[in-house]
């Protein structure tokens, strides 16, 4: 077990000027479950592969524990990796698959068998030890891939979207299993996913990447409550946060015909850049305004029923619903609002996020 440090790690692919991973600085604690998340092409997989030693580090360093592993071969880094497609050896049985690394490392047969059996027990794979991977279901293959990593008892687990090939239901249950398994084993884990729900539910901390640049690394709660910039605000949360520019007033922003108060410093900073401010609010931080109360008028385009919740998609009067991104609000699933209605939304003032309209950075709110 060990901590992991990315020290200004950079990866520039040959023939490309833009770095795939740009000066990544990241500290991962011993035993921590860190999730790298971002849209495709954001450099999350590349970062993981750099840590694994499958990609070269163009600049900067990578440390596992106190050891600089930047120039070490994968086998000397004491890591184990779970691949997206599992990458099981098709010609070996489950037991052989799991024992392969130990065999190469010269571990004695008794010890090998014992560790494979322990891992198989942990993962419910005991009945399948003699089977070939092609005779297993997707979920079982996924567990074999996990088992192959576990038997090695590495200092760091690396997982590259290990759930993306499972069906939706299995993905949810496996998600929980992996998270609890990791906590039980206490092995530092770096997990890559593009699914922000996975990131939020599994990680101790979540690192959001975009275009090779680390945007924010924080606990899921903090990431959700205080996103650093517009990108993180829009990426984390489903449905996405409502984000758009509104005219700046003396004390806040003018949303529709209602003024939303913002922190004095935020107003001042936005004022120096222009006369608008980027305001974000989550769908659940919106209430339907009662009769006579102030609220932002919104014309309803779609009501999305999820059973436990319902989401209202609408647009401001005068806006084109096809061009603008919709305004989304969570409403009572039993409400009688329907398509074409105009509702008034009251935004909870203390749950508003203000961002600089030019840089997209978060403006102070306290």
């Amino acid at each position, binding site marked *: 077990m060990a901590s992991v440090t990315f020290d200004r790690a950079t990866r520039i692919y040959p023939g490309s000027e833009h770095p795939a991973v740009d000066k990544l600085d990241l500290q991962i604690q011993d035993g921590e479950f860190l999730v790298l998340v971002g849209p495709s092409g954001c450099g999350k997989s590349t970062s993981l592969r750099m840590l694994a030693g*499958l990609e070269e580090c163009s600049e900067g360093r990578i440390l596992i524990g106190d050891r600089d592993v930047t120039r070490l071969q994968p086998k000397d880094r004491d890591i*184990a990796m779970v*691949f*997206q*497609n*599992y990458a*099981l*050896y098709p010609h070996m049985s489950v037991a052989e698959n799991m024992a392969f690394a130990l065999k190469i*490392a010269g571990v004695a047969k008794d010890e090998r068998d014992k560790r494979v059996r322990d891992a198989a027990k942990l993962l419910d794979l005991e009945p399948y030890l003699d089977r070939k991977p092609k005779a297993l279901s997707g979920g079982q293959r996924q567990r074999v891939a996990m088992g192959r990593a576990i038997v090695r008892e590495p200092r760091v687990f690396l997982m590259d979207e290990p759930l993306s090939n499972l069906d939706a239901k299995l993905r949810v249950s496996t998600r929980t299993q992996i998270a609890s398994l990791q906590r039980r084993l206490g092995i530092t884990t770096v997990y890559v996913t593009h699914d922000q729900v996975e990131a939020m539910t599994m990680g101790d901390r979540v690192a959001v990447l975009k275009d090779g640049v680390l945007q924010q690394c924080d606990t899921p709660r903090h990431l959700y409550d205080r996103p650093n910039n517009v990108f993180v605000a829009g990426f984390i949360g489903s449905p996405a946060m409502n984000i758009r520019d509104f005219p700046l007033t003396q004390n806040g922003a003018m949303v529709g015909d209602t003024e939303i108060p913002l922190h004095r410093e935020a107003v001042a900073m936005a004022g120096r850049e222009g006369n608008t401010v980027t305001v974000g609010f989550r769908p659940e931080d919106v209430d339907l305004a009662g009769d006579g109360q102030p609220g932002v008028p919104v014309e309803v385009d779609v009501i999305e029923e999820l059973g436990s919740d319902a989401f209202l998609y609408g647009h401001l009067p005068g806006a084109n619903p096809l061009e603008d991104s919709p305004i989304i609000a969570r409403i009572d699933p039993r409400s009688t609002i329907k398509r074409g209605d105009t509702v008034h939304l009251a935004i909870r003032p203390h749950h508003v996020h203000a961002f600089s309209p030019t840089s997209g950075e978060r403006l102070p709110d306290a």
Partner: protein
Amino acid sequence: MSVEAPEVIPASAPSRQPAVTAIRRTFSSRLAAGFVVALTVLWTIPTFGLLVTSLRPQADVTGSGWWNVFLHPSFTLDNYKTVLVSGGYNVSGGLLPYFVNSLVISIPGTLFPLAIASMAAYALAWVPFRGSNVLFFTIFALQVVPLQLALLPLLQFFNLGLSIGPLTIVPALHLGGTFFTVWIAHTMFAMPLAIFLLHNFIAQLPRDVMEAATVDGANFFLTFRRIVLPLSMPSIAAFAIFQFLWVWNDLLVALTFVGGGQATVAPLTARLSQLTGSLGARWDLLTAGAFVSIVVPLIVFFSLQRFFVRGLLAGSVKG
């Protein structure tokens, strides 16, 4: 990162099924089936005649065509006995020593190129080094050199070594007339095609599996031996059949390097071609000899044919 390859656990459903179905449908239409059966019969009749002739007594063979056997059946194994061991009419010593020679030539002549080519193919496909592509294309370009062009220089090299003017680069090897010459020649001639075929297959193995082996601690050689070799068995078997048949049936290379006649090194083909001259009238013996030489390729083909089909399909149809 979704790399798919034969046999390997695919992430998404591979596109093999439709292609295979299409092929199957084309070949299962009645017209096509009838055509195939007709062709097969047409091609098998001469071979069948050969077999029947080889089993008839000498008097019958000279007196009537092989189809008469259906009216007056009479069979004997004497021809085989004569041809293989007892020698007999002008066939000194029989074919057995030549048969053994053929095996001694063909087995290493198949294994050597396979061993070298599979390692080369893996290195060219998966070991990153400067100029690997240029090297690969250069090797394959050698395929256009007709082997006849290389026969005499090689023969000279094996016997006299290599020298430019008075400068001796390789001293005389005096290898002429030994098995080494045919082994080396067949290995060399097979190399471009072998590397090309195996490279195409090995390059298609999924990157994930290779990387998993790397992370598991396997070096290049271990990855080759434990992962690449077992996974590329279909293509290796397919090429083994090609190469074995080619070496077994080869006459030109054998005649050039190990000459005809000597029972110590000459293969079956060389001896059979001599017999055609000296025993032109003894069809009973010739047909038996021919059948002896067919038997081994048949065994090789039937024992490896399931790999053969897979190996041929694997390159063209992904899945």
